[in-house]
């Protein structure tokens, strides 16, 4: 996809991390306020990993897939 700013390893790490966070929250490994936090925050890395685009990366013009260093230097 043309808008992607994440490398494959980045996406896999986000998806895996998101699944772990969601599991911790939704399976009741952690309860209370932190449990709720994990329940919600896990969706963020999961979604950004599946889409391949991170809004924070875009905001700071950062990307983990290859950059056009030569062009930007020109």
């Amino acid at each position, binding site marked *: 996809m043309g808008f992607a700013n994440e490398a494959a390893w980045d996406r896999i790490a986000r998806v895996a991390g998101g*699944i772990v966070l969601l599991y911790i929250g939704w*399976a009741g490994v952690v309860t209370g306020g932190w449990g709720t936090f994990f329940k919600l925050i896990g969706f963020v890395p*999961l979604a950004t990993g*599946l889409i391949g685009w991170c809004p924070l990366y875009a905001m700071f013009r950062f990307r983990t897939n290859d950059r056009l*260093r030569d*062009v930007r230097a020109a």
Partner: protein
Amino acid sequence: MTRSLDLSADRPTILEIWTPTCVACRAMQPDLDVVAKTFSDRVDLKMINAAEESAKIRELGVRATPTLIGVREGTEVFRIVGRRSRTDLHDLVEAVGRGGPVRRVSRQDSVLRLSAGFALLALGVAGGPAWPLAVLGVAVFVSGIGPLLRIRRE
């Protein structure tokens, strides 16, 4: 998004934007060469070195390498950024050559969705149980299997 390009090419063309320092470009090049040779009777491959043609790159709105742009009848029909497998490249070039629809979801995306969906479903059913996770897993799994089934039908 379609973009009009100032290309006088009569035949469908794949623009490959690369740089000599781009590791992914070097890794993908052998696969792209093989695919381009396979479809050389129908599709042209035009390589653009971004380090040497920065004005052209800005005009095209390219921000990363490797970028592949499929052009048919002067119009951009797809744009992908990042390394793709030989199978994905074959499908993209073949679609541009025959004038058919270009698949937007790569096999890598499908596999990632299928894996994530399966993991969510398994954890949702076995570990807890946490039904919202299982439901999410089914949704993610289905979103991955749909494009894969379309790939097999084409």
